[in-house]
């Protein structure tokens, strides 16, 4: 069953291309620094030098090798996006299952909290949060977790309520199975598939949020190489050396499109495999 979902997910060429892209970009971000011709903060020439055989993407506003910075710059985005998204699931899925299965006062409390967080526009929330605590990566991650969690929580809760109406869950209760067994064997595996279908969209959202924060100067401090920061700090030269901003923008876009396509394909195949 699981294998068939995977096969279905990758049935379309678009999904396979997306997988290749994801692999390439993850490899680029994690292994890139080992292959980079220069250090990310090394001054190698004049600012905004054009593309040449030595500097494959020219130099940036300070005269650093753009290609090297590009190779270094993917880590933070991917790590922040991945950490925050995964952490949001880690926080929200157990709470959602608990809330959906047991209801009660904790459920009402959690719903109320999620209502309040829902009411805060994401960008505004992060702006005020980072302005009041000072920009730091852990805060960014916590902020994104806070934004994602209630949304995941709601979905998990609804799906759990839906699943718990299934007869196999009732049968398990009637048989005297423990709460833990029911949560881990009956609810969790069945919640995970539909919930993970959104993973791509959320990861994409995290990437965009982090990149936007970077752009507003609330991300990693310079001289760090970071795709979002690279776009904003070189924006001034966009008409001279458009590729400096375009390379990281493309990487961000390609990664998040690819993740989106994969997640989409995954979601569709989950839908289809249910009908079989």
């Amino acid at each position, binding site marked *: *069953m699981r294998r068939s979902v995977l096969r279905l997910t990758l049935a379309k060429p678009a999904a396979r291309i997306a997988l290749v892209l994801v692999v390439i970009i993850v490899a680029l971000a994690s292994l890139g620094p080992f292959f980079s011709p220069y250090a990310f903060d090394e001054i190698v020439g004049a600012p905004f030098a054009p593309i040449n055989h030595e500097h494959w993407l020219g130099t940036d506003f300070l005269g650093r090798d753009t290609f090297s910075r590009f190779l270094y710059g993917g880590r933070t985005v991917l790590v922040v996006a991945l950490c925050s998204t995964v952490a949001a699931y880690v926080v929200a899925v157990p709470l959602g299952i608990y809330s959906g299965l047991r209801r009660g006062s904790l459920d009402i409390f959690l719903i109320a909290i999620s209502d309040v967080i829902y009411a805060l526009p994401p960008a505004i929330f992060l702006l005020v949060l980072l302005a009041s605590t000072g920009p730091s990566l852990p805060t960014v991650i916590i902020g994104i977790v806070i934004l994602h969690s209630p949304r995941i929580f709601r979905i998990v809760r609804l799906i759990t309520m839906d699943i718990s109406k*299934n007869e*196999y869950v*009732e*049968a398990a*209760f*009637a*048989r005297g199975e423990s709460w833990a067994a029911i949560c881990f*064997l009956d609810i969790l595996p*069945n919640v995970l598939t539909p919930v993970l279908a959104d993973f791509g969209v959320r990861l994409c959202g995290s990437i965009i949020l982090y990149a936007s924060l970077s752009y507003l100067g609330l991300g990693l401090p310079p001289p760090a190489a970071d795709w979002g920061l690279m776009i904003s700090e070189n924006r001034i030269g966009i008409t001279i050396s458009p590729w400096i901003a375009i390379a990281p923008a493309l990487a961000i876009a390609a990664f998040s499109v690819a993740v989106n396509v994969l997640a989409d394909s995954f979601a569709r195949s989950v839908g289809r495999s249910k009908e079989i």
Partner: protein
Amino acid sequence: MTEAIPLVVHSLFMHDLNGREIVSDVSLHVKRGEVLAIIGESGSGKTSVALSLLGFARPGMRISSGKILIGGTDILSLSGRQKRAFQGGKVSLVPQNPTTSFSPRMSVGKQMAELLAAHGHSGTGMKQLMRDALRSVDLPDDEKFLRRYPFELSGGQLQRIAIAMAFITSPQVIVMDEPTTGLDVSTQQTILELIARLVKSSSASVVYVTHDLAVVNVVADRVAVMLSGRIVEQGSRKQVFVAPNDDYTRMLLDAIPRLVTDGPAAVPEADGAKVQSVLEVKNLRAAHGHVEVVHGVSFSVGKGECVGLVGGSGSGKTTTGRCVTGLHSNASGSLLFQGHLMPFAVSSRSKTDLSAMQIVFQNPDRSLNPKESVAQSIARAVRLTGLADRAKVGAEVRSLLDRVRLPQRVADLYPADLSGGERQRVAVARALAVKPKLLVCDEITSALDVSVQAAVVELLLDLKKDGLAMLFITHNLPLVSEIAQSIIIMKDGSIVEAGRTNEVLRSPKHSYTRMLLEAAPRLD
């Protein structure tokens, strides 16, 4: 010759998008005023054939070759506007499930008017037609009724409107796709009568698609039996029912549960000595929220006894079953299980009580965890008995599979890979794994095809022989008559009649029981 016959299907082939043949070489014809019933089990292609008569194939399917002549015109050769003039005009459809067949955000009156407008009617003539049509299906014909939205009407009312709409344009051909399946037992009967009446007074050729042979008996002039996309037998109703030529037809006929008024009597009764009761329910009351749905029900199930709990939808039979198994705790009264008092909530029952009573549900799709293989599913239940050794658990799983007559190879399969009947057996095996004393079967056969139903019933009879007590909840009277020694008839949350099965069926005392008996289709 063809001019005289309103509907002729000539060598129809249909394929799905993967090129699999769904309908193979189907040819049939229906004369003016004649009713042809197409019978088949799920996946036989009968509905595909029915829809193709309107020049339509469901998504994922296509009509690959053949001719469908409606009044001499091949509907498949028509395109766009011309075809639409036929659809709803010269050939109309009565759908299977009335509640999902009406546009939810438009009043029924508007939907009727829309149909008539599309076929050239307008003004007061149209209004008159609508009123007549509603009266002909015994519905109110006032404006207020026409302004109602589909969700405000019952399934039966909606199906009446659907039927009215099928007849309203005086089509040459009317296709009815399982028009009573989605309805309650008691409603089924009246709708069936209505259809029979309308068909008789109309000159249209009717194609009636169903899986229910008993229904066919009421309406059909001729019968076509379909299996795997082919018509295996076609003939007059009498010929097919009395002297079927095909093995499959015979099998279908045999599989139908018959109302055997002397059946259960054949099961040896524990004579003289009073049967030791496994479960005693006393004055059970249950409510959904603040609405009481079960009003003081008392009955008992003896050791090795099968009690049939029969009723229509809303009778409270399912809630009663759920109360017994601890899944519905909003209840009062007392439950005596194996001689001791048992609380209503699952969470306050003892492990031994929980495993001593098991429930199997109606819908096999939802009763197995899709993420667990058959072996995993059953093994989980086996482990609850305290068995931990891997090899021993495995052996127990294998023996359980044997017991429900499933081949060992299904052990590693997932629910998605199994048929409905197989899933239901896995559910039974899982229930048996904890060695219960009482099995509550909640409509366990009603989602299954007739032929599969028969096999499951046979399995249950086997289990009963082994001494397992059963509470068999169903709406299907003939089925109960085959399996239960005693019977309880419920209506609106109360027991209206109870007793030995053969006695109740032979001489029903309550009018509702009589009605149910009459509604039960028979083949003679």
